[in-house]
């Protein structure tokens, strides 16, 4: 015999209650009367003295019949459709990425997912625990483990979707760590042992997940998909490039992509600093792209706003911004006892204001700020590395005590190079011969660009907010200056150090990216502890202090697309944050969740369980019995 609800045996306690009522001695009032004859006759007449009698309307009979009906109803064990009740530990992950703002379902996918999650939370059995995780651009624990439904629902209500991508990796790593049983041993075939009764519930449109690592772990995942269709047009790429001859003549590049199978028409509008420049109609067939190029005049630094007006389901990727700054000359300082090749190569760089000295000047006073300082065989004075905004190219010199000991390598042979690094772009080092080089240990913050068998020959790194490129040999003791690759390397290095290539990427970000703020070299204040204020696109302000030991500051709350207005001291900076994520714009709802190539978890719904209601019926029956007792022994007298 098996009992579906053995805890219901507790209802046997009701027998005690009923028994108690009946063993309670009634307090009868004694009356001495003339004769009990009449009363005896009365009792005899009111008692049944025949097998049958005329059916009369009798409340007691109706109540007893009702009780029997209810009892029978309980015995047939009726069930009602309702949310499936969850028990154990439930890790609830709600996708709050940009694609969840798709409005193919009313009001949007995120609201539907929240409603589904609400149903699950409300269906939690008493004692069941749950943790609520928001899977946005970052993974956040919206509500830590609790068995209080009210707290879970409150946290769920406060949850909102952002415009960023879904940080599915970190969300599932967190979920996996929560459901893992730390005391059990791992069985390779069985996968990771989990806490009994634990399960992970993902409410998402599927998106694009890189969950290959979870494929073999047999995670107890339930996937609740939302969304009905894919009908979206998005701005997938934008760029603004100045003309080589006239930097104020800008060329805007905009790519539109239609992710649906139907053609989408609309109007593409380009504005600069709020002033509309041009608009064009477009009609993009299904699964097709459209590149548009706009040639505009940009008189000053500013923001381009590009809007693709059309009637699709996802609005956040129909708008993009480009923060564009007019190019400014790079101030460079070459400190060298004399190097014709190096000076020649630097002077060949366009847009550079070069100052050549044979020793380091006093840079701590009111000296003009330099973007790039090139030190050729001259050791710098102490503290030179802390000049704000300056970046360094060290050639056979040792600016600080970066290395514990130095030695020399005779005729080192380059063995490996990081060809993907920007400074080696279009650089060939095949013919490079070096007479000798410094034999040093790569500092922990450094990354090798060119290495010999025993020592790095060139490495780069960032220290205290300043970028450094270090060349560990004397150029004049190599054949490099006479090769074509040398001026190219010098050009790349100056461009990389001057951050000209990074500037655009630092002020044009994607939602979910971390914003990085650094002092400009021309900043008047050398203070190392500045207040940074950021006005978010929604108007909300946030401020924080810059790190004392670094000229860098970071802001990771970038789930909203738009313009982030940053104030650092007396500097003002506009950063464009766009929601141009292909993974979010390609918002076809996934009916199943793929973990790698093989494992696939089918989508499910909040199951409607057939919940038995006989307990409720039993309570009603008990209430009727109590009413009957009260009515006929108290009320009627």
């Amino acid at each position, binding site marked *: 015999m098996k009992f579906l609800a053995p805890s219901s045996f507790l209802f046997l306690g009701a027998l005690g209650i009923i028994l108690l009522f009946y063993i309670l001695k*009634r*307090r*009868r*009032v*004694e*009356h*001495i*009367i*003339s*004769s*009990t*004859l*009449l*009363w*005896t*006759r*009365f*009792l005899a*007449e*009111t008692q049944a003295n025949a097998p049958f009698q005329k059916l009369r309307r009798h409340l007691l009979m109706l109540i007893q019949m009702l009780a029997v009906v209810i009892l029978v109803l309980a015995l047939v064990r009726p069930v009602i459709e309702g949310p499936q009740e969850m028990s154990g530990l439930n890790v609830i992950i709600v996708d709050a990425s940009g694609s969840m703002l798709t409005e193919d379902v009313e009001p949007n996918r995120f609201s539907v997912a929240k409603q589904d999650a609400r149903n699950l939370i409300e269906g939690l059995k008493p004692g069941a625990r749950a943790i609520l995780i928001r899977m946005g651009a970052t993974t956040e624990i919206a509500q830590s483990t609790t068995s209080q439904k009210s707290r879970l629902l409150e946290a769920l209500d406060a949850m909102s979707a952002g415009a960023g991508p879904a940080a599915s990796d970190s969300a599932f790593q967190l979920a996996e760590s929560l459901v893992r049983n730390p005391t059990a041993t791992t069985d390779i075939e069985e996968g990771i042992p989990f806490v009994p009764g634990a399960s992970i519930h993902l409410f998402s449109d599927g998106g694009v997940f890189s969950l290959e690592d979870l494929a073999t772990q047999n995670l107890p995942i339930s996937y609740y998909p939302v969304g009905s269709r894919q009908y979206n047009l998005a701005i997938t790429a934008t760029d603004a490039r100045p003309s080589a001859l006239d930097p104020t003549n800008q060329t805007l590049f905009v790519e539109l992509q239609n992710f649906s199978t139907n053609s989408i028409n609309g109007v593409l509008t380009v504005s600069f600093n709020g002033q509309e420049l041009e608009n064009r109609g477009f009609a993009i067939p299904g699964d097709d792209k459209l590149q548009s190029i706009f040639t505009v005049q940009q008189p000053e630094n500013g923001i381009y706003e590009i809007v693709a007006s059309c009637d699709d389901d996802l609005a956040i990727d129909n708008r993009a911004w480009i923060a564009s700054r007019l190019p400014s000359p790079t101030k460079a300082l070459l400190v060298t006892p004399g190097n014709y090749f190096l000076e020649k190569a630097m002077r060949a760089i366009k847009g550079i204001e070069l100052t050549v000295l044979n020793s380091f000047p006093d840079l701590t006073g009111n000296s003009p700020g330099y973007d790039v300082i090139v030190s050729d065989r001259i050791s710098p004075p102490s503290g030179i590395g802390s000049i704000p905004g300056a970046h360094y190219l060290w050639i056979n010199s040792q600016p600080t005590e970066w290395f514990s000991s130095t030695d020399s390598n005779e005729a080192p042979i380059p063995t490996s190079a990081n060809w993907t690094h920007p400074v080696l772009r279009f650089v060939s080092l095949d013919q490079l011969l070096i007479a000798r080089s410094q034999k040093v240990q790569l500092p922990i913050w450094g990354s090798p660009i060119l290495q010999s068998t025993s020592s790095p020959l060139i490495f780069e790194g960032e220290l205290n907010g300043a970028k450094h490129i270090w060349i560990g040999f004397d150029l004049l003791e190599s054949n490099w200056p006479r090769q074509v690759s040398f001026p190219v390397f010098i050009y790349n290095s100056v461009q990389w150090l001057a951050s000209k290539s990074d500037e655009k990427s630092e002020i044009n970000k994607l939602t979910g990216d971390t914003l990085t703020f650094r002092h400009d070299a021309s900043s008047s204040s050398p203070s190392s502890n500045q207040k940074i204020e950021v006005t978010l696109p929604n108007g909300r302000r946030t401020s924080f202090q810059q790190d004392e030991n670094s000229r860098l500051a970071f802001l990771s709350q970038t789930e909203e697309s738009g313009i982030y207005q940053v104030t650092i001291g007396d500097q003002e900076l506009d950063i464009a944050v766009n929601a141009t994520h292909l993974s979010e714009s390609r918002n076809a709802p996934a009916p199943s969740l793929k973990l790698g190539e093989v494992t696939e978890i089918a989508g499910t719904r909040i199951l409607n369980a057939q919940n038995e209601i006989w307990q409720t019926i039993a309570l009603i029956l008990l209430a009727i019995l109590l009413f009957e007792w009260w009515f006929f*022994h108290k009320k*009627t*007298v």
Partner: protein
Amino acid sequence: MPDASSETSPILSGEILRKLEQLELVTRGRSRSSQKGERLSRSRGQSVEFADYRTYSPGDDLRYLDWNLYGRLDKLFVKLYEEERELPVRILLDNSESMQFGDPSKYEFARMVAAALGYLTLSCFDKLSIAFTSEEGVSKSGIGTKLTRPIRGKSQALPYLRALAGCQCTGQGNLAASIRSLTSQKGAPGTCIIISDFLESPEFLESIKALAGSRNQIVLIQVLSPQELNPDLKGELKLIDSESGAATELTFGKARLKSYLKMLHGFFDEIKLTASKSGATYVRCQSDDDLDQFLFKRMREHAVLG
């Protein structure tokens, strides 16, 4: 001869006694008593009421010869007159403990009725005897046989009333046995007046039938208290019989009053039916009824008094 109506009566007022003297018990038949009285009887005797003639026989009293007929017919006839006899009236008064109840007490009212009917009987020169259902009440009163033996004449009225006033209502009675004893009494049949609440076992109904079979005219006077006719009891009750001490537990309230009244009227109907079959007169009254109204209106309506 002392006149009760002119003296202070312990039970009845002088006005009622005087009004009673103008009434008499109505009898349906002729008296079968052998004692002289004022009731017509089937016997021939000396009275003023002419009955018949018969042929003279030697030895007849010459004073009753009808000389006028002799003159016309030349034959001697003797005039016969109806004999007037007394009416034996037997009153059975229930003085058991149960009669003590009610406000006013049922016994008080029953005793007044018995006193009135007794006085009326004595005033009409009938023979009156009274019996009680509870011997205990009689013996405690110290009256003994003074009250229970037959009495005649108006001169016995005051002693009768005084004795009745001293009679107590106590003890357990047996109405059926008391009626049976009336049936078995020697003497001519007469009028039996039973005054009781009749809250006894149905056995007494059979006794009434037997009493009627002995050619007695029966009058049943049922006295009940207002509390018995419309009880104001409610709640969880333990009712104790005043006579037997038997307890009956029940739950009673307004919801069950209707059933009680229905049962009560069924009980009345039973008595009424038995009375009807037995040729008896059944009169029901309440202990708070007006005695004057009861005696001089309702008793006359029921043709008990005339």
